[in-house]
């Protein structure tokens, strides 16, 4: 089956099988290992990527559903000059990860949140992010990082 979609801003065309998930295509066929697989039942959020700007669990989202759409993965956030996305930088600044296995999915979910709501309250962050599990941090620094990223993105917009 022919699969063509926009991936991190560039057109991609590959052969895949009908039953392949988006995560399998990304990891096994495109060597994009940033998208992590954990629960495989759409509970933990580690495999979160954006399809047309909305977060999906790549572990259960069939690759063919992404045909003709825009897929954004963790590999697509860094600018070509190596500057990190404000969310990535905020995760470093706030120590918002430990083992780092949930981090790509966590950052993609946070991006979807901030793209939709540039000034979320703490409750809104908690509500939106509830589909992403982190076993290391106790979530406290992640909430801080998302708030910090929101502030940074607002500053970037103003300047």
């Amino acid at each position, binding site marked *: 089956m022919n699969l063509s979609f926009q991936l991190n801003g560039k057109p991609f065309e590959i052969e895949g099988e009908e039953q392949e998930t988006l995560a399998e295509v990304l*990891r096994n066929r495109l060597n*994009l*290992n*940033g*998208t*992590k*697989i*954990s*629960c*495989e*039942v759409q*509970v*933990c959020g*580690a495999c979160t990527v954006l399809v047309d700007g909305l977060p999906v669990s790549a572990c259960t989202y069939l690759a063919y559903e992404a045909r003709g759409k825009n897929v954004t*993965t*963790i*590999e697509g*956030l*860094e600018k070509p000059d190596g500057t*990190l996305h404000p969310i*990535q*930088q905020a*995760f*470093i*600044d706030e*120590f918002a*990860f*430990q*083992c*780092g*296995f*949930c*981090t*790509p999915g966590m*950052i993609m979910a946070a991006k979807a949140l901030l793209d939709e709501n540039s000034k979320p309250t703490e409750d809104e*962050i*908690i*509500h939106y*992010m*509830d589909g*992403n*599990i*982190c*076993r*290391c*941090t*106790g*979530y*406290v*620094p*992640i*909430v801080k990082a998302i708030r910090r990223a929101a502030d940074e993105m607002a500053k970037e917009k103003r300047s």
Partner: protein
Amino acid sequence: MTAEKKPDFQVVNHSVPRRDGRVKVTGRATFVSDLRLIGMAYAKVLRSPYAHAKIVSIDTSRAEARRGVYCVLTGNNLEGLNPYYGHAVKDHPLLAIEKVRYAGEPVAAVVAVDERTAFEALEYIDVKYEELKPVLTPQEAMEKDAPLIHQRKFEAGALRGFEGEVTAGKGTNICQEHHLKWGDVEKAFKEAAAVVEGEYYFPMTYAYAMEPYVAIAEVSDEGVTIYSSAQHPFMVRHDLKSVFNLPVSAVRLIVPFVGGGYGSKSYTKIEPLVAACSWKAKRSVKLQLTVEEAMLTTRSDDAYTWMRTAVDANGKIIARQARIYMNTGAYAENSPLVVEKSTNRCVGPYAIPNVQIDNYSFYTNTVPASSYRGFGCAQVTLPGESQIDELATKIGKDPYEFRLMNAAKPGEEFFPGMRPFDGTLKEDLEIAAKAVGWKEPLEKGRGRGVACSGSDAGAYPLTSTAIRVYADGSASLMTGSTELGQGSHTVLPQIAAEELGIPVDNVRVVSSDTAITPYDRSTGASRTTTLMGRAVMEASREAIQQMVKMAADVLKVKVEEIQVIKGGVRCGEAQLNWSEVISKYYALPDGEVIGRAYIRKDGDFAKLPVFWEVACTGVELSVDEETGKIQMEKLATVGDVGLAINPALAEGQDIGAATMGMGIGLFEELVYDGPQLVNGSILDYRVPRFSDLPKKVELHLVQNQDGVGPYGAKGGGEASLNSMPANIANAVDRATGVRIREAPLTPERVWRALRDKKT
């Protein structure tokens, strides 16, 4: 070691950003699950549907005939290997041999060209079982006519880690027992002014490291090379050496980033199986478990504890006695050590003159239990810290004041024969109490708790390291400590940079490759900062000593004339930085100096434990009496860490551990219905999520430089978990007047307890 009071630290004691930050936020951090070797095959595992059964026959011919299948392994075709492994007790076959001992046990493995082919072939393996009566709890295991789960006698593993004799396989279902006794318990209870007594249950829990177990093995005439998500590569090496009967030098374990461990990736898991697959298939093989399979691989020991504690008329604790039955599951794994540790940890950080603890772990037909963050401490701190509150209430004392009065004091040998207490519990408790507003009035339906734990931590002090200082003044640190997320790749370079006086960014870390990095016994028991940190400090100093001699040679002066300054040396007017020392010595801008350090049970580390791991937690919660649901209002952690090499990382460990402890207190529990695990999926096993965050969180560190680690550091990262389930139970009692003696305190359990109180 007397800690130097150095208020002018340049690099340590600063929250420098994580060294693995950039790779982890960009998705470029490599975990074993991301690795692929050229020509690699894939394995999948067939698991037993029965908890206890004889394997009558296995026919693999249909599976082997399938296209793309390289081979099928069973317990019947492992000739040439020593298939039983175990660092503590060699009771664990890499595939079931003759019988299965738990539902989910690996019975066969298919190696195929890809994962799907391997998976599809599993259903073509024909296994005939003859069911045996399963034994599921310690109570069933100790019955007189209970079926024996293990019939044969076992060798002790070479790195067993516990003190007693191996009990396993000696004609009962007891896996290990441990006893502790001092004073005269019977007399003390007779003379006591007040006694509390009760039975408690601590559940089976699953660590849920988000990266499930994964390993790649390459077995050839050259030896065994394994990429694994193991916490303790050197311990796994030892098991592999024994399975393949090879010299240590022919076994290589490589561990890249690990996606969470929390003890669940301690010791050997799937490595013998994947290595056997590679050996049989004659090519490299990857075995990636799913989370559901990981849940069938390791869990924590659940524990049934009877405990009583007594005070005298002055409110001084005079005696504690406990009897613990732990459920070890089908194989010993690290449970013998968990038994020993949980026995010791019953004493808590209190000075108690009369103690008797009798602890037994039992084999059952359930998933094997092993290490879990805190090593048996949480299991016994639920009863221990519950009884402190129960006893305080009984004698009309404030539980916080009662703790202050009985807590072990700095320097006190509160545990006979062990290292004197190296924490400041009074200070810790005061901070925790203040953080949750202990003395302030409580709203209706709310309760508070302040609790603590003290663990004999640090495991065994055997650690070595090397630091290579290069001719440009940068350095590489060779460490066998594994980066699990705890931040060792940040903390260890901080120590080297502090000693060498060079920027922390100029220190690289090479880690956890047993062929390259010097021996480190384990990455667990909160030991890395203390032991590896101390080794890094000493290795850096040894490198400096060598460079001082080199500088004397270069400057043609006596060694005594060389003075060490930040980042180099001085002699009179002449100053040389490390780069100049090395370059001038070798007369080339190249070459290096290797500093080394070896730590063993001697000197500062002669007395165990390496340190007492001490922490307090404070909670305030509210209970919805209609539904039994608990809402966490406040959480405070106080880590008594000696010195935080990186305060942000130390606090991160505390909040992470406290959150896991909160999960056990509120909802985490593996549930068996008969012989089957019924919630063996993340759909059904409830872990804390964003919405479970306590409304207010405070993190505190106490830094008195009273540890034997570098600059007086001690370990942290487990202790904040240990007291949380008891703390939650204590706060629920204060909120509702109902005492619940089992975790987790699910809404149903709380609701039932409230209903029973009313009727």
